[in-house]
């Protein structure tokens, strides 16, 4: 049911996009092909703009459209066939159904796989032209494909191309002009006849016979059974195999081709060391370089020292404020603290204002503005909707998310990610997931909010629930991870050991329990492994840009909503009330100082605020351990919470969120009772 509703939304959305084209009557050219066939490079050539090319089937579903000469060109997500097994296929299907001309890009190395879609497009009665991409790779491997013969057998024009070398693009105009309806098997028309009379379009009739319930529902005609689909599919598969055996020759019998690295990264014996090397490189790039150095500069210097300082002192020109300036002096350990109070605004006393300006611009000054006006507090205060959210989004989250997407893009484009998914498949099976779930989980160490959006690519609702729960309960995001790492490394070896084993066992217990009690079945792994190759940097940059942009666009507004919510709690005094309520649990059960409660409440806002709140408390090593375990298991930040509600629904979201409170205090408390 949910699927259908989602689909309708998709369709409505698509209708809008597609009907724009109909309005101005432009012919629609659609690029279609399997994943990783280089479709997007063709699209780039036609449009001049960039689209996401990806090795791992299915990260986000995006529709891209461009104008080319007197027509509209659409790019589609890579699919193995036209049907509705997942979101990408539904989107691709709807665009293809509307197409006037389909340019089918085929990976010439994998003719057997790719021609299946080609024949389906022909059976749909679409006018098509075929491009055999990867011609250079073909020559390298001494494989011969006869394009003329293939064209004869298919009844449509076939062109050779090598998109990475920009060869074959010049044929696109000809391909668009000469696109033809291909040769369909005679038997097909007997099968389609009746449905065709009722729905009027061969493409839709075919999909209905092939069991597409959504299309059948649109025309309110009965849908084909799974058996009919199987018969058609097997017949089509046989035609493909026959065609391939006629047109393809391998010159030398070089035996089986494998890329050594690709092979080694699959088997745990060699794959785990390779993974460890990758993770180490990742750690130095993201954990050390980006989340420490880059973010330190962007958040502390650009964000706090310039952006927030100028914004807030500007606001202070108009409203009462109390500003404290702390100057950290290396030689004088006693911090110099000065407090300036402006009852009306900054300009009431020019002398004090000048002194404040002078002092606060000291290199080591930390400036803290407090506004008494409620509106000013809500917008520009400590949790100010404008001040905090913009610093957070632009100067903390943006560099981190971009770095993570960049690393993922490199791994995707190299073909490593699907192999990693394969290697970890069995391990993930134990917790009710399959190998594909490594993507959201790995992204979670960057930003849980970003990762929660990515759980969409998992095969079943059950897997989405398990992955979301893992992300929300046990995966610390990079902002939090940085604080945890600093505190733990100061606490010693035993605390690290306790922390890691408690968090890991919680992960195992929670996910195996969910796996046991959630109804339904998880989907087994079934992915094709693309060839290993050196990733192209410009492609990775472009992909990073588009994904980061997509994430910021989707999630940013929720960070503002979250800040508004917390700002209201702060202004109304509810935040303090929470801290008081939590205090007894903190002191007796967790055996931490009363002030630690503040850290937990802050954790609701931003996970790293929570962890950072523990810095000033002078805790014993074992207290640090307990506090960090509790804060890691504690609820995710407010933005992740809202995205979770959006993705998983209100009920499930609230259950996960509230149980995170319980788990955090329960497990943290038990550890406290044992070790303190």
């Amino acid at each position, binding site marked *: 049911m949910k699927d259908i509703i989602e689909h309708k939304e998709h369709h409505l959305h698509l209708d809008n996009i597609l009907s724009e084209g109909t309005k101005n009557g432009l012919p629609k050219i659609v690029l279609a092909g399997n994943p990783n066939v280089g479709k997007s490079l063709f699209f780039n050539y036609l449009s001049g703009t960039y689209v996401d090319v990806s090795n791992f089937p299915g990260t986000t579903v995006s529709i891209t459209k461009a104008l080319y000469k007197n027509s509209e060109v659409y790019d589609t997500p890579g699919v193995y066939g036209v049907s509705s097994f997942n979101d990408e296929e539904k989107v691709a299907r709807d665009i293809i159904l509307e197409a006037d001309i389909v340019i089918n890009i085929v990976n010439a190395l994998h003719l057997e796989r790719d021609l299946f879609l080609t024949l389906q497009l022909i059976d749909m009665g679409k006018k098509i032209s075929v491009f055999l991409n990867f011609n250079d790779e073909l020559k390298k491997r001494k494989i011969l494909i006869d394009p003329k013969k293939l064209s004869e057998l298919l009844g449509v024009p076939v062109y050779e191309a090598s998109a990475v070398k920009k060869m074959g693009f010049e044929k696109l105009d000809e391909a668009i002009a000469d696109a033809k309806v291909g040769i369909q098997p005679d038997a097909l028309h007997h099968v389609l006849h009746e449905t065709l009379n009722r729905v009027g379009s061969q493409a839709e009739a075919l999909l209905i016979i092939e069991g597409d319930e959504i299309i059948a529902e649109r025309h309110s005609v009965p849908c084909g059974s799974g058996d009919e689909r199987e018969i058609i599919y097997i017949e089509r598969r046989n035609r493909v195999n026959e065609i391939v055996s006629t047109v393809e020759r391998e010159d030398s019998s070089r035996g*089986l081709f*494998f890329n050594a690295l690709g092979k080694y990264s699959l088997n745990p014996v060699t794959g785990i060391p390779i993974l460890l090397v990758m993770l180490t490189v990742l750690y130095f790039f993201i954990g050390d370089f980006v989340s420490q150095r880059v973010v330190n500069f962007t958040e502390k210097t650009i964000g706090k020292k310039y952006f927030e300082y100028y914004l807030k002192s500007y606001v202070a020109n108009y409203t009462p404020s109390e500003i404290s300036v702390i100057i950290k002096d290396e030689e004088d350990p006693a911090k110099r603290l000065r407090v300036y109070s402006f009852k009306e605004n900054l300009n009431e006393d020019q002398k004090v204002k000048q002194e404040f300006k002078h002092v606060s611009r000291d290199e080591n000054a930390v400036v803290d503005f407090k506004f008494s006006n409620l509106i000013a507090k809500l917008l520009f205060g400590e949790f100010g909707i404008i001040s905090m959210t913009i610093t957070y989004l632009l100067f903390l989250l943006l560099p981190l998310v971009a770095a993570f997407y960049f690393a993922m893009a490199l791994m995707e484009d190299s073909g490593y990610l699907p192999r990693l998914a394969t290697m970890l498949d069995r391990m993930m099976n134990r917790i009710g997931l399959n190998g594909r779930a490594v993507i959201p989980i790995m992204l979670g160490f960057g930003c849980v909010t970003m990762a929660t959006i990515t759980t969409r690519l998992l095969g079943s609702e059950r897997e989405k629930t398990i992955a979301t729960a893992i992300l929300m309960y046990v995966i610390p995001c990079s902002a939090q991870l940085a604080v945890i790492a600093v505190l733990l490394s100061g606490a010693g070896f035993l605390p690290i050991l306790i922390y890691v084993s408690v968090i890991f066992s919680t992960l195992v217990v929670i996910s195996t329990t969910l796996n046991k009690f959630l109804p339904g079945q998880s989907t087994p*792994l*079934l992915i094709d492994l693309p060839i290993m190759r050196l990733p192209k940097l410009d492609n990775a940059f472009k992909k990073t840009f588009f994904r980061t942009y997509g994430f910021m666009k989707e999630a940013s507004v929720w960070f503002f909503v979250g800040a508004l919510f917390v700002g209201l709690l702060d202004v109304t005094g509810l935040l303090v009330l929470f801290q008081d309520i939590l205090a007894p649990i903190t002191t007796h059960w967790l055996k931490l100082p009363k002030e630690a409660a503040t850290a937990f409440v802050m954790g609701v806002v931003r996970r790293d605020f929570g962890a950072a709140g523990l810095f000033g408390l002078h805790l014993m090593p074992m207290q640090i351990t307990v506090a960090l375990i509790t804060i890691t298991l504690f609820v995710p930040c407010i933005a992740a919470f809202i995205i979770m509600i959006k993705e998983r629904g209100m009920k499930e979201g609230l259950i996960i969120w509230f149980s995170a409170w319980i788990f955090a205090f329960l497990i943290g408390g038990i550890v406290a009772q044992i070790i303190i």
Partner: protein
Amino acid sequence: MGSKTLDKIKKGTYFTIEKLPSGIVKVQLIRLGLSEGDTIFCLERLPGGTIIVQKNRQEIAIGFELAKLISVRIKII
């Protein structure tokens, strides 16, 4: 040699697919190029049972639970 399921196939053997599980997964397998009667090579068997098969140049990873549902016959060359 008699039939087996794919999860029992040793690395480095050629085998013929006898029967695929029915339903959507069958359709997905056919689209990827694995259909009944095809001869396939078992490229790798990972500890735990995830199987990587190869048909021509195409490598496909198949989860253990799915492999158990695919009946195959070992081919002697």
